[in-house]
């Protein structure tokens, strides 16, 4: 069966609908069937619908995503309460240890993302992985920094990623590889992202899953939860009416 490739992190300039459309067309051309665009938390529903239409024209499925950058764990909990039912994907960019620990154990968080160039603020260690392994969070790696950084800073990033990927695999935490692209020329084919993932010791099969099965599983799970028939995990309404 043909794989469904997913890029969960596109970051077009939302004020430029033409660029959004170009990126969606590019995603389709590169072989993606589903893309998620990072949106501000106050993004209006009509505008999300406009994005859906753009994606439909480009023949790519669209998922709404919000990137949270909370300063405290309380702020994270409040944001999750407000936003969980509005967005299909919630990613937390963990900039402090407390926030990263809270994000790792909260089942409403889908993706754990860490700042690419602040190496002291990459808190994905064994303790973090232990917490994440008991929740639903996946570890997300954006490829754009790997493409644009050079020299010692890229070496340090690769070194951190090698360590973190090994930890994620040891604790069976799903890894999601996304482009994190801000322009069309920084988008790569799914197989190219998988090839780049070999730089941080992700084997070929795991790398392909990181751009297909793992992100798709998050979307499927959340769409089911956000659907009107969802009651609780494993329980859904199959028929409505007086004779039920």
């Amino acid at each position, binding site marked *: 069966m043909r794989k469904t490739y997913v890029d969960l992190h596109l970051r077009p300039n939302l004020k430029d609908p033409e660029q959004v459309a170009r990126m969606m067309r590019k995603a389709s051309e590169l072989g993606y069937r589903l893309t998620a665009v990072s949106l501000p938390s106050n993004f209006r529903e009509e505008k999300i619908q406009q994005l859906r239409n753009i994606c439909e024209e480009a023949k790519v499925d669209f998922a709404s995503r919000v990137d949270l950058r909370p300063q405290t764990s309380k702020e994270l909990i409040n944001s999750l309460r407000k936003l969980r039912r509005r967005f299909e994907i919630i990613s937390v960019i963990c900039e402090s240890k407390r926030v990263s620990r809270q994000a790792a154990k909260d089942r409403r968080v889908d993706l754990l993302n860490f700042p690419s160039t602040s190496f002291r603020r990459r808190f994905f260690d064994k303790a973090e992985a232990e917490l994440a392994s008991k929740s639903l969070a996946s570890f997300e790696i954006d490829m754009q920094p790997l*493409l644009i950084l050079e020299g010692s800073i890229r070496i340090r990033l690769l070194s951190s990623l090698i360590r973190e990927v090994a930890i994620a695999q040891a604790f069976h935490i799903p890894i999601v590889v996304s482009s994190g692209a801000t*322009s069309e*020329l920084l988008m*790569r084919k799914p*197989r*190219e992202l998988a090839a*780049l993932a*070999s*730089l941080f010791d992700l084997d070929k099969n795991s790398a392909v899953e990181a751009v297909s099965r793992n992100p798709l599983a998050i979307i499927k799970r959340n769409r089911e939860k956000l659907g009107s028939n969802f009651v609780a995990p494993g329980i859904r309404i199959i028929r409505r009416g007086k004779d039920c």
Partner: protein
Amino acid sequence: MALKIDSDETFSSGELIDAVWNAVLKLYGEYGASRSGLTLINYDAEKGLAIIRTFNTTVEPIQAALASITKIRDKPAAIHVLTISGTIRTLRKKIKQ
């Protein structure tokens, strides 16, 4: 490997292969680059299509190096792998399809 060069600019074959060698050198060093057997076979600057040859043991590292290219001659560009094949004849057939 058949490649598509994605850019608003056109580049000479020298500029293209320089960009590829630089990417390989940056990621794998001179030792790694020396083991890749990288050669430019054919390049159509107008269409932005190229064929390169590499050892089958280094296909994945070369693919990673190609994906890491963001600029050619300091102009924004990307290189996408169209198809990979064991022989150049089959590769040409695949491109035509």
